[in-house]
């Protein structure tokens, strides 16, 4: 009796599912996130090219005949109380805000991920120390910790970035530790261990990739928050100082002239809002595509 074996068609190119293709398949269905992602890319491009594309010098061009004038063909976003072109200042400010948001979160993510990886893998006293430090940092509400750090180090954007980075470390440490704790008892880790892989190899080659998805999602969502925190500190006068065209600092300067020139405050507000919104929407989309289990807030 020779019944022909059922023929399975040879897998075609699209049937092969790599993590990357799987991610793209899910991500491209999220139109809003896709648009947000394109917007973020454009923003990065604009920020990188800002010094060459601004119509006027953001700090040293003063149009004394147009103080506080609303938007016009010459000055797209109007002019501030010192006669500076707001559009040029917003473009230059994008460099500062994006750099502050990205550098601080990336630094926090790298340090937090390493600490969390070690804490989750070795547990014991090291875990207790790291988690206790995280608890202590979490005991300072909101931007209070950042204000405290800036109070010690002095005002300025570099110190603000450092403060926001410190403030991001515990969140990443907790996230990664949690992931590692649930991953390390999986069979594949046991298998790697049984063929004699060292702890370093297990952590970096086998546990780390398992947590990358949630770290990337959280990082994206966190950039928005960090841009707001950095802008808040500049708004309070603790970060970038005038005449630097940082968005928060611009808003602080605009407060004095709110009555006769509200547009001076409007554009920096919108710039922060649109940028942070784009990062948040992108983060939501990445989360749905990469890590649906991550909390939705």
């Amino acid at each position, binding site marked *: 009796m020779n019944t022909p074996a059922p023929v399975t068609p040879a897998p075609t190119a699209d049937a092969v599912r790599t993590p990357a293709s799987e991610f793209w398949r899910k991500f491209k269905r999220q139109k809003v996130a896709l648009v947000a992602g394109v917007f973020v890319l454009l923003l990065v491009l604009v920020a990188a090219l800002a010094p060459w594309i601004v119509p006027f010098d953001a700090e040293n061009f003063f149009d004394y005949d147009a103080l506080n004038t609303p938007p016009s063909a010459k000055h797209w976003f109007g002019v501030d109380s010192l006669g500076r072109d707001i559009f040029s200042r917003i473009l230059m400010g994008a460099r500062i805000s994006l750099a502050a948001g990205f550098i601080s979160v990336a630094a926090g993510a790298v340090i937090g991920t390493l600490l969390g990886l070690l804490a989750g893998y070795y547990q014991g006293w090291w875990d207790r120390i790291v988690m206790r430090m995280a608890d202590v940092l979490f005991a300072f509400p909101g931007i209070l910790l950042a204000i405290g750090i800036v109070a010690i180090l002095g005002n300025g954007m570099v110190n603000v970035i450092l403060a926001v980075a410190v403030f991001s470390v515990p969140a990443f440490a907790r996230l990664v530790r949690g992931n590692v704790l649930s991953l390390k008892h999986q069979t594949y880790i046991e298998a790697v261990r049984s063929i004699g892989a060292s702890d370093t190899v297990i952590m970096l080659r086998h546990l780390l990739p398992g947590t990358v998805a949630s770290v990337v999602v959280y990082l994206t969502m966190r950039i928005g928050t960090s841009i707001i925190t950095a802008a808040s500190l500049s708004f309070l006068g603790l970060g970038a100082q005038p005449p630097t065209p940082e968005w928060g600092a611009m808003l602080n300067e605009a407060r004095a002239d709110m009555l006769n020139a509200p547009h001076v405050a409007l554009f920096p507000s919108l710039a922060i*809002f649109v940028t942070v919104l784009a990062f948040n929407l992108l983060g939501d989309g990445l989360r749905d595509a990469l890590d649906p289990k991550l909390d939705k807030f």
Partner: protein
Amino acid sequence: MAVYLLKRLLGLLPTLLIVAVLVFAFVHLLPGDPARLAAGVDAGPETVELVRRDLGLDLPLPQQFVRFFSHALQGDFGLSIRSKRPVSTEIAERFGPTFFLTIAAMGWSVLLGLVLGVASAVWRNRWPDRLGMTFAISGISFPSFALGMVLMQLFSVQLGWLPTVGADTWKHYILPSLTLGAGVAAVMARFTRSSFIDILKEDYVRTARAKGLGELPVVFKHGLRNALIPVVTMMGLQFGFLLGGSIVVEVVFNWPGMGRLLVDAVEMRDYPLIQALVLLFSLEFILINLLVDVLYAVINPTIRFQ
């Protein structure tokens, strides 16, 4: 319950101790000589020495810490460098406005957040959900200081309905509490929505529906109660956000609270005041989280017996 409470309180002690050490160390991390800072710019070397001895800054560090800690326990944080008045008096005047502002913001934002979250979950992917979530994502993306300035421009300057600055009447509370609570309402809405969606998929909800219960009792009696557990935890975390956020909002509205006091203190390098405020802010946050944990244990008895 008492055992649980005691265990939680004891568990807080190490965190509190480390926070106290950090706040104490703060003065020694500042650039420059704290005695010189306290004595003022035009003080001679003798005065600086006198101030140093007076503040106990000549003692060995561990002794200084014990001194700081025992004074702090009695509510004595020394004199403010700027006003020369006791730090405790300065803070006492400012505590009320911040406290009530935070409560007002928390109240409306949690309520609105719950309503939006539940509505979005029940009418998932329909217009109430889209509207609610558009509001929510905007709420977490709009910086509070910008929102405060927009609201003030619109309602106080253009329309003249509400006062701009100060904290005298209930009308003064409307704009600052709206500004402060917007972010929290947004986070609560998103969080409630996602936990409610999970709840609506549970077996007991299906059972409730299967036995012919109407949609209202299913949502409120079976759904909401269970969804509240994670939401309460979230509330605790959001309180920290509010305490931090009040710092910024108070500056926008020139609010006579602890947040503005802190910003002024940082500007003037008034370190005794900074120390006391940072300690107080984090103490408040830790206590609120404790309260939330206890509340959590009341709602969910399985926590107590672990």
